[in-house]
């Protein structure tokens, strides 16, 4: 799983914000707000990674139970795929 190219991620007013640019901005209007975990995973999936790798990375970065991490990563990945944000 890997995010499409064409998103800009920045911290605005202390909140992580993702905005599509170029071609992507024509099909997806608006912006995405990410919490801290979401911003971490967003950056992680800029490179090709599996769900399992995402879970391991999340557990390495945050004090979170593996079951919870897996549920979070699956939900995150499913949301990205449902919106067509992945390659």
């Amino acid at each position, binding site marked *: 799983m890997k995010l499409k190219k064409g998103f*800009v991620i*920045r911290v605005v*007013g*202390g*909140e992580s914000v993702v905005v599509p*640019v170029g071609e992507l901005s*024509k099909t997806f209007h608006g912006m995405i707000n990410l919490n801290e975990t979401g911003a971490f995973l967003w950056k992680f999936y800029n490179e090709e990674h599996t769900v399992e790798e995402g879970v391991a990375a999340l557990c390495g970065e945050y004090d979170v139970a593996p079951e919870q991490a897996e549920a979070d990563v699956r939900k995150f990945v499913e949301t990205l795929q449902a919106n067509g944000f992945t390659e």
Partner: protein
Amino acid sequence: MIYDIAGLRIKIENRCSYTENFCKAYLSKDQTSPTDLSVKVTVDEFRAEKEISGNFSDGYVENICLYRNICKQIPLLNRILLHAAVLEYDGNGYAFLGRSGTGKSTHTGLWLKHIPNVRIINGDKPILQATENGFLAYGTPWMGKEGLGCNASTPLKGLCFLEQAPENSIRRLIPSEVSARLFTQILLPQDEENVVATLELVDRLIMNTPAYLLRCNISEEAVQTSFEEMTGLNYQNIKKN
């Protein structure tokens, strides 16, 4: 023709004469020196806007597209469009924001009615410029259907988000609360450089400008509530008789 808008020299290449008349108060005396940016409207842009706007004249539709194209290029020049009404009192600017129908024009109308020496810089679509000392708000030819505003600028001292409520109250917003509210009131460009510049400018705006949530009705007390909190002055001492 070349116009002086928001401290920039802007070349506008319009087909319809509507825009020349619309922008005439901003026409530059210097029509030869280099410009900061130039805009025109492509056939595709015009068609797309015409489809949305329906009944409006070609000149009006082109005019809307021209401002949008200006505003998508200005983030790299340290400026952004803000959907807000900006008033000036005592040399300081205050922006009022809210979705259409939340009472922006009603509340700013109350300021004009009850507070002396208030003027509207731009009633709908001011351009903000980031400077070393905070943001400046500029009047532009585009100032909403009521056409309220002037060719002037003012240092922006507060952002006031409006919500209708039976009782008047006001509180400061923290940056994360401002971020969510502000993004619905700005224009996001498409090209990466201008998007990045926009996000950086919005961040600076949030971090450098006090922001408030005003929950208000349409009474005089609503004006007192926003005026005193944002200016720090006593309303009773300054209000019109």
